[in-house]
């Protein structure tokens, strides 16, 4: 499901699924490795050697963190790459968050676990090139050859005993021509003093003091506060509202209807997504509490639009009816699955379904905008400022170049903040009232106006030969979209594993059209599909009477690296993580009654993860998680082990919440859940120990925001099967079904 322009762009490197958004929004594309410059696009400040590095006379080094920090640790990790090659001490380093600045920086987004693969080499090159000019400047001053100079801890040294701090060389160095980035020599990794060392988050000391780092904390002089009340029914609009009454309430500065503006439709995750300014009522007040409270008095007549009858029951019934028929569209067919099923020694059939999910970032969506007096300035937690700029300019009728975006820290993102709908709302409201405005969504707004992870219903028939080899896989599923066009993240990649390894296989789908907004949630598509595929593979292993890990290794075949759909897939790396996790968890050991181990693996966002869950199921169906083991291969180097382990554990815990807690349902065209009581992340009580091991393989380092998340869900449900003989085929897990 990869757009061809992306496929072409980076041969051998799987482009970010999330970055699809970036590409459609920005003609220049955000995904260009090796196109970095030292950034002379904009006037540099004093002491700046380039857009990334500034060195003060006291030898303090300020590095720019160009990408949005959403909790994945890039504000620390990316500057570590520069600092390493610059050869400074981490203690000397200050870090500044960049504004959105496409003249100086490439790829300013957070998504697809792409920060590491896109920046690992370019940012080291930037550090090395900067070091190069500093050495050059010292050599010229001393009249020696640069090759006789060495550097350490932000100093240049010469064999003669001469030395100078970088801070004293900046002026001279700034006049020198920077070397070609690709030609600079990089350090031998055995000499690393920063990369690979556990490093605490650069903002951590501020965070434990409650410093105002998040979008929701922004203050601008003269700022007003806003809420935006949208139609609870997706696709609805405003007919009328009691605005005159609202305007009389204490502290209310304005209240008005926003008609909404043309949806911004673009390709995302192999499907179409739509974002933009939705219709609703803006209430602007002198405090957020007053604006929010005014909603209690708000009376709106809505036009509920064409989808008011949609509900979870409607979707489930429609899916049932569609699965009873042949799929409307078969888009992958290898061999003849129907015939192979007829001649197979053994066949099994199963149905799987999973629900819609919300992102529910702990910091609700918010944005502060000042669109007045010739200004067009935004402060926002956004994963994709480039798309925000296009959306804002198009909707507000301003020029892209006039839109200034300050990227704030995000209180979680998980894909939600790729959509920027809250930014265009804030901009519109600010433009209407002619003052800076901070828009904050209530938690209810946030849960009820998400771009949900799409639900899905699958029916799979599998056939084994007499030796227990899979000979047939016939897979039909019901998803969302229109005709042959999936909704965002509602598709199944035709290359999905184990496609290509089974002689007779088909993927076919029938799509339901709806007004429910859908979009990328951490490990989009894989967060659901890996559960379906790895569960059914486990079913086949048991049907074949084989150990699930032995079976997985047999299906994997030769440990070679080959294209899998649009991606390059290495069976060797899967084998590496499977073998590792098998040892870690003591696979095969004797377990107490009603306790089981389950295994699953996935390949996504360039990373490989194999995970095992040990689960115990009580007689009443209560599931207790004893432990999770995760073996992860994201290449030869973990840049910041401190953050890496945290990301991996967090991903596992996030996946467990999908399995155990989370579900969004709809009734009368609207979202039923409204807060954390209806859709909760895991709580501390539910969290098992999660042991993480990184398998270092000789491949370029890749990211960790997503790869560890998908396999834990099937590992858990496979463990439940091992414990009870009951197969979970519907998420979230219903303990009642496991009782007895």
């Amino acid at each position, binding site marked *: 499901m990869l757009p061809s322009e992306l496929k072409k762009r980076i041969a051998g490197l799987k482009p970010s699924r999330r970055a699809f958004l970036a590409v459609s929004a920005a003609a220049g594309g955000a995904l260009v490795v090796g196109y970095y410059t030292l950034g002379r696009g904009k006037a540099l400040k004093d002491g700046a050697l380039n857009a990334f590095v500034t060195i003060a006379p006291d030898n303090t080094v300020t590095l720019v963190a160009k990408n949005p920090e959403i909790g994945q640790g890039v504000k620390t990790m990316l500057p570590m790459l520069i600092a390493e090659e610059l050869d400074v001490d981490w203690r000397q380093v200050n870090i500044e968050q960049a504004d959105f600045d496409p003249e100086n920086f490439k790829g300013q987004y957070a998504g697809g676990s792409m920060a590491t693969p896109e920046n690992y080499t370019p940012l080291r090159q930037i550090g090395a090139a900067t070091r190069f000019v500093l050495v050059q400047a010292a050599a010229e001053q001393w009249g020696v050859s640069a090759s006789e100079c060495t550097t350490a801890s932000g100093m240049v040294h010469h064999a003669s005993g001469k030395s100078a701090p970088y801070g004293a060389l900046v002026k001279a160095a700034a006049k020198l021509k920077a070397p070609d980035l690709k030609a600079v020599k990089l350090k031998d990794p055995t000499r690393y003093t920063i990369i690979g060392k556990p490093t605490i988050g650069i903002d951590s000391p501020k965070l434990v003091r409650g410093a105002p780092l998040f979008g929701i904390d922004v203050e601008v002089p003269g700022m007003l506060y806003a809420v935006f009340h949208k139609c609870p029914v997706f696709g609805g609009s405003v007919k009328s509202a009691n605005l005159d009454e609202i305007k009389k309430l204490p502290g209310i500065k304005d209240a008005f209807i926003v008609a909404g503006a043309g949806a911004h439709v673009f390709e995302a995750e192999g499907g179409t997504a739509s974002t933009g300014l939705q219709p609703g009522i803006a209430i602007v007040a002198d405090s957020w509490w007053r604006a929010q409270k005014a909603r209690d008095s708000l009376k709106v007549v809505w036009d509920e639009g064409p989808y008011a009858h949609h509900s979870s029951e409607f979707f489930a019934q429609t899916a049932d009816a569609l699965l009873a028929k042949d799929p409307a569209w078969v888009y992958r067919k290898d061999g003849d699955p129907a015939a192979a099923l007829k001649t197979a020694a053994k066949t099994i059939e199963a149905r799987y379904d999973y629900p819609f999910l919300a992102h529910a970032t702990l910091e609700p969506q918010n944005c502060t905008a000042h669109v007045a007096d010739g200004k067009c300035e935004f402060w926002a937690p956004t994963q994709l400022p480039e798309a925000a700029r296009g959306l804002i300019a198009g909707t507000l009728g301003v020029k892209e170049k006039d839109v200034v975006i300050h990227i704030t820290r995000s209180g979680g993102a998980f894909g939600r903040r790729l959509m920027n709908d809250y930014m265009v709302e804030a901009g519109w409201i600010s433009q209407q009232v002619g003052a800076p405005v901070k828009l904050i969504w209530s938690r209810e707004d946030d849960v009820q106006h998400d771009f949900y992870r799409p639900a899905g219903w699958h029916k799979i028939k599998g056939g084994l030969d007499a030796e227990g080899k899979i000979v047939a896989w016939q897979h039909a599923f019901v998803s969302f979209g229109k005709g042959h066009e999936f909704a965002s993240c509602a598709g199944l990649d035709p290359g999905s594993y184990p496609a290509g390894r089974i002689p007779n296989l088909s993927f076919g789908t029938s799509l339901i059209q709806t007004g429910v907004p859908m979009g990328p949630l951490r490990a989009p598509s894989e967060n659901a599909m890996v559960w379906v595929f790895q569960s059914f593979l486990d079913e086949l292993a048991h049907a074949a009477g084989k150990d699930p890990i032995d079976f997985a290794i047999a299906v994997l075949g030769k440990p070679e690296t080959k294209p899998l759909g649009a991606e390059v897939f290495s069976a060797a790396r899967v084998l590496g993580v499977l073998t590792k996790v098998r040892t870690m968890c003591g696979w095969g050991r004797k377990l107490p009654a009603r306790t089981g181990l389950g295994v699953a693996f996935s390949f996504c966002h360039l990373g490989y993860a194999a995970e095992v869950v040990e689960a115990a199921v009580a007689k009443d169906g209560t599931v207790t998680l004893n432990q999770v083991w995760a073996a992860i291969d994201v290449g030869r180097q973990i840049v910041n082990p401190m953050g890496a382990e945290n990301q991996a554990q967090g991903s596992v815990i996030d996946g467990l919440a999908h399995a155990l807690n989370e579900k969004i349902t709809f009734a009368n065209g609207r979202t039923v859940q409204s807060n954390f009581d209806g859709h909760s992340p895991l709580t501390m009580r539910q*969290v098992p120990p999660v042991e993480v091991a990184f398998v270092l393989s000789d491949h370029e380092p890749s990211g960790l925001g997503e790869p560890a998340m998908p396999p834990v869900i099937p590992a858990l449900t496979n463990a439940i099967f091992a414990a009870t003989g009951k197969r979970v085929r519907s998420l979230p897990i219903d303990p009642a079904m496991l009782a007895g």
Partner: protein
Amino acid sequence: MHYTLNVNGQDRSVDVDDDTPLLWVLRDAMNLKGTRYGCGAGLCGACTVHIDGQPVQSCRMPVSSLGTSKIVTIEGIGDTPIGKRITDAWLKIDVMQCGYCQGGQIMAAAALLAQNPKPSDDDIVTAMDGHLCRCGTYLRIKQAIKLAAEGS
């Protein structure tokens, strides 16, 4: 209405509606942004402060109910001995991912250690269970609380 509140050892005056939750008084009237809004309904703990030493969800606490109570927020907790131990432990283990929940987590942990200097695993879970971390940093939160308890 005019209110004088004692926050982090200082009396501060504000003019707000009677029903304004302490959360929004702190954030918007006093510009203390470390107490954070997550749910507004007592479901996440991001807004936790101490009122006379007790952990309280400030989103559910109207300003009119506070009287002369002593309020401590995340901006002030590091100045208490327990708060200092907790924040040091938080940094040593680097609990944070996004960090948005962590103010509330630290406030809850500080209240726990004030009452129970050597909490068992169960005590920790009981005290912390309602404090949601969407990023899933629970394992490190537990570890940090234990580390801080060791230092007592």
